[in-house]
């Protein structure tokens, strides 16, 4: 998306401001004075090694962690909806739950065994269409491949349409077709002015799709546009065992 296109987008997503956010669980420091901001309506990627605190940062953003520091969402209007797509879904493979059942359980108040509610059925159909799972609606969740399940999770994140979308490694299990679907979705969200916070391991995808990227390993190691920040030395620092803060480009 060009700068001109970006200007024409009506931003509906919030800006996110991390100000000296720290998190200690037990006696393990997970986040150490993390400060950065996410622009409204941008696609913001979080990269970093395993155990670097990316998922914890997202849980903190969702208000599920006992953090210190100030973390606020600056909504352009009234506070809107936050969508969350988890990394993976753990459930028994033999569970007789179809894709439709799962979507019903996630999207409607009526119990899933009573079928899809008429109010959300079109939205569910459209969401599954967008992720290319329309023809597998009657399949059991346990019978889906990892990539297909990830697509269902993405579809679930689309209903109701969020203004802030938090994605925890959505591409880790996606196959090539799924990755294309995801890229299309990302473009759609970007055009709709939705703020997307996106944890990703695939640095090539980050470079291609994200507007801004933050390297996180307990503390912010760098923060900036991917073209500038994703240099080999930075990445060496980022994925080294002992994080050093002086590689940041703030």
């Amino acid at each position: 998306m060009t700068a001109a296109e970006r200007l024409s987008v009506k931003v509906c997503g919030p800006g996110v401001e991390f100000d000296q956010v720290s998190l200690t669980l037990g006696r393990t420091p997970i986040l150490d004075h993390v400060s950065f901001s996410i622009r409204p309506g941008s696609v913001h990627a979080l990269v970093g090694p395993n155990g670097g605190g990316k998922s914890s940062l997202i849980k903190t953003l969702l208000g599920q962690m006992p953090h210190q520091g100030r973390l606020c969402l600056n909504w352009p209007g009234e506070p809107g909806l936050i969508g969350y797509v988890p990394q993976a879904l753990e459930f028994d493979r033999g569970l007789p739950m179809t894709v439709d059942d799962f979507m019903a359980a996630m999207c409607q108040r009526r119990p899933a065994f009573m079928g899809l509610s008429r109010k959300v059925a079109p939205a569910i159909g459209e969401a599954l269409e967008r992720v290319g799972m329309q023809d597998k609606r009657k399949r059991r969740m346990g019978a889906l491949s990892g990539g297909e399940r990830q697509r269902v999770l993405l579809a679930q994140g689309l209903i109701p349409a969020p203004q802030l979308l938090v994605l925890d490694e959505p591409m880790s299990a996606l196959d090539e077709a799924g990755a294309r679907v995801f890229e299309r979705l990302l473009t759609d969200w970007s055009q709709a002015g939705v703020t997307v916070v996106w944890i990703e391991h695939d640095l090539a995808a980050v470079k291609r799709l994200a507007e801004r990227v933050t390297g996180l390993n307990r503390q912010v190691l760098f923060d900036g546009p991917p073209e500038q920040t994703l240099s080999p030395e930075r990445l060496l620092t980022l994925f080294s065992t002992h994080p050093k803060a002086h590689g940041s480009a703030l």
Partner: protein
Amino acid sequence: MSTQVVRPAGAGHETLYVLLLCLLILTVAGSVVAWRHESQEVTSVATHQLDARRDLTAAEQGIYADLRVTLDEIQLLREESSTLPQPAQLAEEGFAPFASDASSVSRGNHAWQLLGQQAYLGVSPNPEVAGSFLMRIADQPDIWLNRQHAVSPPVDLSDAALNQSGWQQVIAQFDAGVTRQHRH
């Protein structure tokens, strides 16, 4: 434009809500208790009286209870013959405590007599086990107890005279103490 601050999870406000809820429950429970509260009437026993439940020995309680039951029979017999039955007659019929049996012996072996047409007197040879009893048959029959040795039959059966000669009225009270034991 509105700013939403993400509050830390489990950082005390849940604890505060739980404590506030506890406080609310305690307040409601406390106010219900205070509202439904009934002050307990403490009836005191006068010095010339004895409480049937607390102040009598086991044998005295037995005799007292028997007297109150037999009083009904005595009143029925009086209606039939318009005179009070003699203790010997009552003993023949087997009414306790007039009848002489193992329990009457163990309760002090009282010697019963009729005083005029007014009262029954049971003199106890053994006041440590049970004192002497006097049952006045009037509009309001009542029972008196005397724990002195060698009780002589009272001549004057008025309250004051009985008091003078060491008799105490046995009264039964029905209050919360019937089910709840209080130490006096």
